[in-house]
């Protein structure tokens, strides 16, 4: 038996040799304004924040960079290759991101379909192999397919990031069995990325035993992003703690909680 306090004492989340205390990773896109973004990220307790690589707006350069608002010393910046539809493009974006000089981590996305934003797993594997060889710590955004996840691990990815449901959909965890299977079979961290809609989704996802969760729209598109960020922090911790605590077995019949003995005649 452990006490509640001991149960809460969790290992850090270690990705590519870097240890993080928070298992919630958050994006920086789609916020109504930059001040709300900063307050929401603070409320989430996240250390890892994702950013995208885009052209500088030559008319209003200073205002458009996310780093104008977010201190890169306070957060670990995880650049993504969002919007890339080929391995070649994703590799190009990853190299540009690394040149910004913060770290050699990349959240690798190679999208295969515009409507669903589901990954092109062939392109993803191809890009992952090249980037791993170039010394990148690759966190690969993928679907919930075990074999692809295994191939990504074999390719040397630092973490595998299966989706809960399509990007920005808010549909929650659609395939808990697949996510549990991926977690059971991989050795590198499994971080569920995309699809969370509300706090219960984050909690259920963490209860599967995955190492972390990454979300953006669920916080940014909430009516009150700062409050939702706080809820996500609590839900991520609750789900993780429940996983560590070990849930009771499911039964299809009722079992009384009160003693059957000692009833009055």
């Amino acid at each position, binding site marked *: 038996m452990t006490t509640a306090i001991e149960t809460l004492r969790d290992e850090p989340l270690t990705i590519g040799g870097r240890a993080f205390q928070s298992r919630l990773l958050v*994006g*920086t*896109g*789609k*916020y109504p304004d930059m001040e709300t*973004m900063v307050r929401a990220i603070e409320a989430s307790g996240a250390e890892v924040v*994702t*950013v*995208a*690589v*885009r*052209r*500088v707006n*030559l008319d209003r*350069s200073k205002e*458009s*960079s*996310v*780093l104008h608002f977010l201190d890169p010393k306070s957060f670990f*910046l995880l*650049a*993504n290759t*969002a919007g890339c539809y080929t391995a070649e493009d994703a590799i190009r974006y990853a*190299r*540009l*991101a690394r*040149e*910004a*000089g913060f770290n050699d981590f990349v959240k690798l996305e190679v999208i295969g379909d515009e409507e669903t934003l589901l990954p092109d797993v062939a392109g993803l594997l191809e890009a992952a192999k090249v980037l791993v060889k170039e010394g990148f710590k690759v966190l690969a955004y993928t679907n919930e397919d075990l074999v692809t996840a295994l191939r990504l691990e074999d390719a040397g990815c630092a973490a595998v990031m299966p989706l809960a449901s399509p*990007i*920005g959909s808010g549909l929650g965890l659609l395939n808990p069995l697949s996510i549990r299977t991926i977690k059971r079979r991989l050795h590198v961290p499994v971080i569920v990325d*995309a699809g969370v809609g509300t706090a219960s989704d984050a909690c259920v996802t963490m209860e599967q035993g995955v190492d972390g969760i*990454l*979300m*953006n*729209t669920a916080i940014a598109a909430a009516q009150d992003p700062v409050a939702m960020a706080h809820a996500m922090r609590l839900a991520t911790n609750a789900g993780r703690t429940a996983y560590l605590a070990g849930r009771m077995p499911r039964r299809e019949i009722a079992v009384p909680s009160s003693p059957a003995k000692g009833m009055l005649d």
Partner: protein
Amino acid sequence: MDVVINGEPKQITAGVTLLELLSELELDPRAVVVEHNRKIVRRIGLGEVTVQDGDAIELVHFVGGG
């Protein structure tokens, strides 16, 4: 001299280096990454690359994303 910066045709002073170009565009070289004709130019080398007529230059930075 005609170049293409971030996909847009631009007229710039002939003979400038990438570092001088950034200064002309009022961009902080520490805040952007420069790709010159599809090749990344490291910050330290920006002053050594002279822009030629017809060059394609990409200037990127981090924006909000998930």
